[in-house]
């Protein structure tokens, strides 16, 4: 192949040798065949999966019964204290209990999910693939309390190496987002939204870089791990929030994640570090925060289809301790 130094040249040394391996090993990047990027709202999904599990306080029991390969019913009981927003330093907790009945219809092209709670709330979600590239998502929530009902509809269009989304909601909420793959690993995107009811509007930008299999000496740094998968994302919004996250898959069972949020309008900084262990019978997620919060979430498989869930959150600054346990069947 053209471009290699002749075998007799010994002046160049290590750098040239590595560059030679580089040219042989790496394929030429085809900028016309880039992969389709992740949807804009799922940009930080690895970080969210590892760092933000659904912590809860109290007892939770979920039972899902499948009547059909596509249709299933779910029953869920929750008993525990619910926090109320209060102005003072003390958090106000009121013990509540509710039962939730739900029905799910899941098809490759159509997904319908509905839930009814005993405190009078009704939630519905629809996801439909209208064509190969265009899909529609809608969700609505109705409630007994006044002004707590809202609905939203999204249209997603998937292009060859880009995605766009249009969002319409009640209370004259309007949003649009666009994300594009720049290289096989890097994608950039932006969003704009306008909320008429709260008279807020904003613009945001995001970037996402993901990488795997860095061992093939494609760059001059030698990476000692067998296979690395890491994802770095950054997001800026004009509400003053900058969010950056970095997730690294240390081995196939363990991944470590870290997250940094800075609000430049209110000068609020939060950083957190967490781990995600996926073992055969259990999944354990732990997180330590700069607000003095340590939390852990454990899901253990007791039997086929029977999962035991434990959640713990300790806030040292506010001396607020929350522990929960639950069982998930089906």
């Amino acid at each position, binding site marked *: 192949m053209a471009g290699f130094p002749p075998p007799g040249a010994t002046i160049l040394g290590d750098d040239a040798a590595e560059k030679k391996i580089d040219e042989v090993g790496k394929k030429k990047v085809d900028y016309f065949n880039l992969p389709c990027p992740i949807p804009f709202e799922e940009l930080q999904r690895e970080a969210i999966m590892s760092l933000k599990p659904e912590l809860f306080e109290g007892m939770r029991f979920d039972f899902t019964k499948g009547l059909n390969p596509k249709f299933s019913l779910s029953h869920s009981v929750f008993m525990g204290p619910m926090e109320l927003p209060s102005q003072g330093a003390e958090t106000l907790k009121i013990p509540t209990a509710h039962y939730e009945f739900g029905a799910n219809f899941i098809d490759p092209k159509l997904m319908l999910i509905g839930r009814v709670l005993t405190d009078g709330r009704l939630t519905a979600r629809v996801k439909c693939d209208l064509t190969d590239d265009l899909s529609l998502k809608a969700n609505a929530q109705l409630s007994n309390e006044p002004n707590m009902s809202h609905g939203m509809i999204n249209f997603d269009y998937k292009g060859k190496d880009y995605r766009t989304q249009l969002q319409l909601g009640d209370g004259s909420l309007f949003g649009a987002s666009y994300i594009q793959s720049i290289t096989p690993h890097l994608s950039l995107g932006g969003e704009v939204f306008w909320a008429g009811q709260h008279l807020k509007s904003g613009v945001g930008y995001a970037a996402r870089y993901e990488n795997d299999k860095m061992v093939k000496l494609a760059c001059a740094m030698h990476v000692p791990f067998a296979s690395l998968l890491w994802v770095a994302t950054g997001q800026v919004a004009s509400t003053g929030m900058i969010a950056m996250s970095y997730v690294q898959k240390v*081995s*196939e*069972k363990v991944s470590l994640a870290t997250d940094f949020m800075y609000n430049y309008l209110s000068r609020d900084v939060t950083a957190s570090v967490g*781990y995600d*262990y996926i*073992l*055969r*019978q*259990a999944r*354990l997620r*732990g997180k*330590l925060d700069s607000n003095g919060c*340590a*939390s*852990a979430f*454990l899901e*253990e498989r007791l039997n086929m289809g029977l999962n035991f869930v*434990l959640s*713990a959150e*300790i806030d*040292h600054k506010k001396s607020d301790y929350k522990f929960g346990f639950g069982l998930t069947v089906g």
Partner: protein
Amino acid sequence: MASQAARGGVSLPEKRPPKRQQPDSDTILAKLTNSEIVSKGKRAACDTAYVTKRLLRSTGKAAWIAGTTFLILVVPLIIEMDRDQQLTELELQQQSLLGAPPVGAPQK
């Protein structure tokens, strides 16, 4: 005290004014207790007690925070990893008992 607050959280209590000498004490004991060295020694002992109390309290608080955080973050991890290792050992044992050699090395 305003000056103490300006300096920050922790500081020794302010220097107390020296005890007024009692001019009509002639006994050796009175002279000894009013002497410079004894009053300085008393002041040092008070300061030491104060500092030790504060240090113990902050060490106790740090130990509590470290202990409970370790309990939440690390102890379930150790328990689960131990169970996974036991399960792997059991599977390996069963595979070797049944005669079929294990296909590959057990995953770490």
